[in-house]
């Protein structure tokens, strides 16, 4: 059995006991990446030498009897959207291919101060926009359970590298389901914490009011450990909550009593794949067998979640991505080529006597912006920028953006009401198991609808967790989603741990890699 088959918590105990060293573990992780990632494509970049040096340091300090951080010596992968001053942060975009942030994101700094060993940067949909990681401008990531299938996204690399046993722990981000959905499709545990629980400082923004950083691992205990390391108030993030961080890794193993689980009827309506339905219903039955009572709850506005989300997220994105204009950093178009293009257009317009065209011809500065952005962004990013720009533009703001914010409030109110009666809401993560690569690239709307079950938690700011609860006949993992009221991550973790104590879905490993 490989070292990496053990859970992070087990590895931590082994490290503490001196049974293994961090260098050994890191080397095992790097070897596994070396062996499997050619097929999976989870990593955009590995920091082999730096990781081994960091591991060595930790081993030395451990040997010296120093007090170490809670992740001491564990390999962790980071989604390439969190700034790290020691390397590039590309967001899997051509725009930022060479961008080296002169500062660390709070999450990366916290991982380092927890003595984690950062082994590499994982692939994602460009700027975290997408649900398949196919929107990466760099490479495809394949689902370790079936290499013809997508790992989900946008944290596809983050989920795939855990599923393929390359690292025990990985950091993702979730704006509309981007941790939970790939976790579900790759058969690992992923959590989107309460909005404001984890600092967004240094997380390259997609949709600021929805983005949240979160942990991925194979067990609820490991997720608890990683969450404990990254959570906490950050004075550099105005939206960060001033809440003490519970000792998740300690409390996770204490079972919940008198658990009341809510089920939303609409989530089991048409459109839900029957294998997924069966697995999810079975998982709920497991909870019943553990003493939970199950109750039907209503989230009447959640059916508008995707619509509200695809107004709010692109609107914020159109603004957040305005900074990538080739002026101060990031990709800039070839200026000589651009000037030549403008000159040619000018010539053509004046020859055809098109005065209006001449009047409206871009200035060199504007053309620089437009070309740089056109070259630097991929189609999905452009689509969302266009949608958001449209939704915020004069005459449409009230009908789209403002309306969506009101619907968002109603969605939140539905949850508040539902959680008066239940402790958790259980349901599917996605309507189907992993889809084939390329299946939806030309149908953005169908791709957006994959987020149906996950976006509402982002809109409402609630914590949500996804964990494996079965497999399809084709051997693809199926995810169970648990949602809880704000700041009740502990409840999610305990419930997930209880489930994993009784079932063994999380112990299965993908065959091919």
């Amino acid at each position, binding site marked *: 059995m490989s070292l990496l088959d053990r859970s992070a918590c087990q590895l931590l105990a082994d490290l503490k006991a001196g049974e293994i060293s961090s260098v050994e573990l890191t080397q095992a992780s790097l070897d596994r990446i070396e062996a499997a990632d050619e097929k999976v494509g989870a990593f955009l970049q590995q920091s082999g030498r730096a990781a081994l040096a960091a591991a060595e340091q930790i081993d030395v300090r451990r040997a010296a009897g120093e007090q170490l951080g809670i992740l001491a010596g564990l390999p962790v992968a980071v989604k390439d959207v*969190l*700034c790290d001053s020691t390397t590039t*942060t590309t*967001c899997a975009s051509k725009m*930022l291919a060479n*961008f080296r*942030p*002169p*500062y660390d*994101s709070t999450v990366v700094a916290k991982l380092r101060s927890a003595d984690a060993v950062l082994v590499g940067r994982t692939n994602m949909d460009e700027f975290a926009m997408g649900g398949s990681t196919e929107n990466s401008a760099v490479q495809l990531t394949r689902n370790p359970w079936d290499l013809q299938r997508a790992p989900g996204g946008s944290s596809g690399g983050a989920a795939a590298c855990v599923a393929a046993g390359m690292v025990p722990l990985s950091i993702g981000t979730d704006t509309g389901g981007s941790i939970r959905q790939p976790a579900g499709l790759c058969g690992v545990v992923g959590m989107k914490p309460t909005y404001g629980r984890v600092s*967004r*400082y*240094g*997380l*390259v*923004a997609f*949709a*600021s*009011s929805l983005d949240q950083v979160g942990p991925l691992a194979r067990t609820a205990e490991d997720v608890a450990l990683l969450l404990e390391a990254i959570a906490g108030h950050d*004075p*550099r*993030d*105005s*939206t960060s909550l001033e809440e003490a961080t519970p000792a998740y890794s300690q409390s996770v193993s204490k079972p919940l009593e008198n658990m009341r689980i809510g089920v939303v009827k609409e989530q089991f309506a048409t459109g839900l794949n029957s294998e997924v339905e069966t697995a999810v219903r079975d998982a709920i039955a497991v909870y019943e067998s553990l003493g939970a009572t199950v109750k039907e709850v209503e989230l009447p506005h959640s059916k508008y979640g995707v619509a509200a989300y695809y107004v709010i997220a692109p*609107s*914020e994105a*159109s*603004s957040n*991505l*305005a*900074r*990538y*204009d080739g*002026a*101060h*950093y990031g990709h800039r178009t070839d200026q000589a080529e651009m000037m030549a293009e403008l000159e040619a257009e000018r010539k053509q317009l004046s020859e055809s006597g098109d005065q209006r065209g001449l009047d409206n011809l871009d200035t060199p*500065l*504007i053309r620089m*912006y437009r070309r740089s952005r056109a070259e630097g962004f991929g189609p999905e990013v452009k689509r969302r920028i266009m949608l958001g*720009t449209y939704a*915020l*533009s*004069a005459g449409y*703001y009230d009908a789209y*953006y403002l309306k969506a914010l009101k619907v968002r409030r109603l969605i939140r109110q539905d949850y508040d009401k539902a959680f008066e009666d239940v402790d958790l809401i259980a349901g599917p993560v996605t309507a189907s198991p992993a889809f084939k690569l390329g299946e939806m690239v030309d149908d953005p709307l169908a791709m957006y609808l994959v987020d149906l079950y996950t976006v509402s938690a982002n809109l409402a700011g609630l914590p949500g967790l996804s964990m494996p609860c079965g497999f399809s006949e084709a051997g693809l993992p199926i995810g169970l989603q648990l949602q809880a009221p704000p700041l009740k991550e502990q409840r999610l973790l305990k419930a997930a741990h209880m489930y994993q104590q009784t079932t063994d879905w999380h112990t299965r490993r993908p065959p091919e890699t």
Partner: protein
Amino acid sequence: MPEQPYTTVIGLEVHVQLATQSKLFCRCSTQFGAEPNTQTCPVCTGLPGTLPVMNAHAFELSLQTAIALNCDIPGFTKWDRKQYYYPDLPKGYQISQFDLPMSDDGYLEIADPKDRFEPKRVRILRAHLEEDAGKSVHDEAAGKADSEIDLNRTGTPLLEIVSEPDMRSSLEARAFLQELKLLLTYIGVSDCNMQEGSLRVDANVNLHLEKDSEKVATPIVEIKNMNSFRAVERAIDYEAKRQYDEWQETGRRLGESPKQTRGWDDAAGVTRGQRSKEESSDYRYFPDPDLMPVTTTAEQVEAVRAALPELPAGLRQRLGDDYSLGHYDADVLVNQGRPVVDYYLTAADASGDPKLTCNWVTQEVLRELKDKEITIEQFGVSAERLAGLVKGIDSGAIPGPRGREVFTTMLADDCDAQEATSKLGIEQVDESELVALCQKLVDANPKIVADVKAGKQQAVGALIGQAKAQNPNVDPGRVREICLELAQQS
């Protein structure tokens, strides 16, 4: 002023840089004059992943200003993103306030000490807190293809104060700006240095006129690039005439053409049309998701109000009521700023003669400050010593005409009035001694006595000269009175 066939209608937008140490959303210094791009950080250069956190002091200063401007302070305010592309704006949006500004509906009262316009209340539409942009420099003369961007100023806190179009002449506009600047310096929220860009003014100008006994308005023009109050005055005057000419030519009314922006060319003394892009006005404002709203309670507002220093308008009133100063004197003092007023108040309280003290301050002291280009704090005669001088004059210990000599000596020798008086050998002349001297002069000059008796009072002047020659300490006014009396009696 000659009657014009139109009324000029003016509204002003003033951007004031708030006197914070650090920027609005990051902790870079706001110090003016640093080398380009040496006061920036990941936040103010808009690097991916960075987030803004609001400077508490900037909000406090805005609150103080808004309250001093008699604005309402709503209980809830938020920040919005105003989106446009410009290389001095690295995020692609400016964090500003759109529909729920931190204050609105205030006013500022203006008056002209020379009474060239009626005192009036200029309404303030709103005042809101926003971030400044950087600077772009394009050296056309050097034939450079590219512009150079300096982001030092990016993120500096600005308070934008928007007036209603309540001013009717360039004079009123200037008075508004002067009074606003005075108010801001009294509260200490800004240094208001126009050269350094701490105070920037845009003016919205149009004309109201009558055509066939129907009231019409011309299209509004926004004037930019005015670098002094004098420039604002000239630009408005120029623009009013230009708009009148244009109106006569085109007859175009408000709403018949889009709002135009014109830049003031100070050297040429003209405004010039600026290229306007039709799409540039779609700023796509929306609430900044990175910044939380700010709530303010009525108690907080009252506490800020109570802690405000005395404001220029109240101070003028007090100088009139408690110190019996006329509008003009009160204005001269208050316009000098609080330190001069404090100097005056100390001196006036100590001397017990507010009017005479005012004369000394507004004439001799201010002249010295101006000549030597120093501040009142650097001035060599303390308020207490000036009061000593005024008291000496009032008591007769210092003959009025010699006061200036005493003052000069106090300044030169760094001494009080008493010491200066004795240094100059000034002694008080006893009344009986004075009468005796006058009697002697009257007796010795029968021709003058005859002239006086014949009604030529001015003849007594010669006696005053003689008296001063005999004793430099005599009070000429008193000599005149006594001599006239004695002459009549003789």
